[in-house]
């Protein structure tokens, strides 16, 4: 029952509060957010002892009703959603664009994202994803700049095309099995694993793969996440939690079809290629937000690669990385928003000397960068240790090594902003600093207390001895030195990066890539 209230309360409360006048509406929205936090604490309390709660709306049977399920993994993501939205609302307290329409849309988005994580039947999922696509495309265009309408329109059209493919797949599943409930489908596919499920598999994985921005289907992401006119809150939201919905669904559908169709090597290669292309493109951009957006693509590739490895610890590692990436990517986007606000430019070559002009913010940025590159004691390293724990073949370790070095390379360039001189001293608002501090402290905690948290979340034991820490530190420093050397000597001479910066994929080409991906899935 609480699952339904978590979805329904923001929508009902948001609509009611929109009818009031401006001041009362703002107070009402913040009250509703506090109520949500209380509800989530109740929810976590109920699921804490490894129970699974299912709830069918209206009391029907589960094969025709709308069903919500809350188990160990879902509840963590729902808590992450509410936490991230609270932090973003704290950040946005005094901004000029946060009028009641903006807060209305953000609250509805919160309810829908919680619903997507908790949904147990595919049609609820489809409806919630479509509505959230429309809301996100309106939020992207919120400031109505010149570039934003093109970006928003491209985002909306490409995502709706992906969802159309997804719904044809749903039609096939309903025709073959007669039900759309995920628990029932799992049992039915295991029982009938010799049916030819190739066609629904291709349609559904194309649709969900486009939502989670894997290899040929990611070109909408930099335009949507790095667009000039989106407020930094919206970019943090998209890269932090909304893309995680897509990745979570992608992994879930991969597991759903895996008794019948097992394409593990294909998904490993897809994850690896996504990660490599992500950081190569990130290295060639000059705009802060575009660097961060391409880097999101790279991390999504790492998550898919980790999950496709197949071992138990790798699965825990990718879920841990989903949580941790949400925290530090939002922190990076929010601090990038502060930088753009004060320096009035988005070009990375024009911003220097952050340590002197905004010391507190630059400490937060350093914490986030160390987390994302996997420095020991910070949170990124725990997930990377988990993923690489049981790697079997040497080609997989080589791929993992390349992804690691690439991540460090792209962030060496980002951190050149911190050094240098600057004469100005900027004063940052208190609420923004509070928001950033919450996120950075959580990043640190999830790294230092990593063993305990892994045991709490997944029940798996992870022993980190002192020798392992030493080994990881030495490896990290070695990678960092390689990265700095590469940046100083090789980077300026290679003209590939400038060429990549100026390419642009048009809408027709994007749909063509979608069709090619679909045809590839049919033929493998």
């Amino acid at each position, binding site marked *: 029952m609480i699952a*339904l209230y978590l979805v*329904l309360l923001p*929508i*009902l409360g948001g*609509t*009611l509060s*929109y*009818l009031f006048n401006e001041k009362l509406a703002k107070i009402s929205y913040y009250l509703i957010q506090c109520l949500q936090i209380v509800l989530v604490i109740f929810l976590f309390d109920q699921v804490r002892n490894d129970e699974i709660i299912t709830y069918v*709306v*209206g*009391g*029907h049977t589960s094969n025709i009703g709308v069903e919500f399920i809350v188990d160990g993994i879902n509840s963590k993501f729902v808590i992450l959603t509410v936490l991230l939205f609270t932090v973003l609302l704290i950040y946005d307290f005094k901004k000029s664009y946060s009028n009641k329409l903006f807060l209305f849309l953000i609250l509805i988005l919160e309810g829908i994202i919680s619903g997507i994580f908790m949904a147990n039947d595919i049609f609820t999922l489809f409806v919630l994803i479509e509505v959230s696509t429309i809301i996100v495309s309106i939020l992207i265009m919120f400031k109505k700049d010149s570039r934003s309408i093109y970006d928003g329109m491209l985002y909306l059209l490409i995502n709706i095309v992906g969802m159309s493919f997804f719904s044809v797949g749903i039609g096939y599943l309903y025709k073959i099995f007669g039900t759309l409930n995920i628990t029932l489908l799992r049992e039915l596919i295991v029982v009938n694993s010799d049916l030819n499920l190739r066609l629904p598999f291709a349609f559904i994985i194309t649709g969900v793969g486009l939502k989670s921005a894997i290899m040929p289907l990611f070109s909408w992401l930099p335009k949507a996440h790095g667009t000039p006119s989106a407020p930094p809150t919206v970019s943090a939201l998209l890269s932090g939690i909304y893309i995680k919905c897509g990745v979570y669904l992608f992994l879930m559908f991969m597991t759903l079809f895996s008794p019948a169709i097992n394409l593990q090597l294909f998904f490993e290669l897809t994850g690896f290629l996504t990660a490599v292309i992500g950081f190569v493109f990130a290295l060639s951009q000059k705009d802060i937000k575009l660097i961060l957006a391409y880097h999101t693509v790279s991390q999504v590739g790492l998550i898919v690669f980790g999950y496709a490895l197949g071992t138990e610890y790798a699965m825990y590692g990718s879920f841990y990385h989903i949580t941790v990436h949400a925290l530090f990517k939002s922190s990076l986007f929010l601090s990038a928003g502060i930088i753009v606000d004060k320096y009035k430019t988005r070009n990375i070559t024009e911003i220097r000397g952050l340590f002197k002009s905004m010391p507190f913010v630059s400490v937060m940025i350093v914490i986030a960068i160390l987390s994302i590159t996997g420095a020991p004691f910070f949170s990124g390293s725990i997930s990377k240790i988990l993923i690489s724990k049981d790697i079997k073949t040497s080609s997989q370790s080589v791929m993992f090594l390349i992804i690691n070095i690439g991540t460090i390379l792209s962030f060496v360039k980002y951190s050149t902003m911190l050094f240098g001189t600057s004469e100005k001293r900027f004063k940052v608002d208190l609420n923004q600093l509070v928001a950033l501090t919450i996120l950075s402290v959580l990043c640190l905690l999830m790294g230092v207390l990593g063993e305990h948290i892994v045991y709490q979340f997944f029940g798996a034991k992870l022993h980190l001895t002192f020798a392992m820490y030493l080994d990881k530190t030495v490896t990290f420093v070695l990678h960092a030195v390689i990265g700095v050397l590469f940046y100083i000597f090789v980077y300026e001479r290679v003209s590939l990066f400038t060429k990549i910066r100026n390419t642009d994929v048009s809408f027709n080409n994007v749909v063509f890539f979608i069709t090619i991906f679909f045809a590839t899935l049919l033929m493998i």
Partner: protein
Amino acid sequence: MRRTSRELVSETLKLLYPVIIIFGFYLVIYGHQGPGGGFQGGVVLASSYIIKYIADGKTSLNLKKINYMEKVLYFLLVLFTALIMINSLDLVPVDFRKYVIVVLNILIGFKVCLATLVIFFRFVIYEDVR
């Protein structure tokens, strides 16, 4: 005095508006027993105002009030669904259970009519201002 062709069209269409509105109400109320339903009937109800605009070239609708009423109707609709349909019709006495869907259709019909009017007239006013 010569009447222009625009006035001819406008006067002729005045015969049609009652028919369209009654047809829209029929689709909304009998939507569960034949083709139709809340959404379809709502669009037909809105189309009568749209035809009046296309024939006349001017409109006297107050978009702010229509927007506000549409949000109120949306809130009532979700409240109705949340209270009654989700608790598996416990609050409704047994004799009235078959009218639940009629009430739902009527609410949806009005809301869709107002929403379509808002969408269409926002396009139109945008074009007129330019």
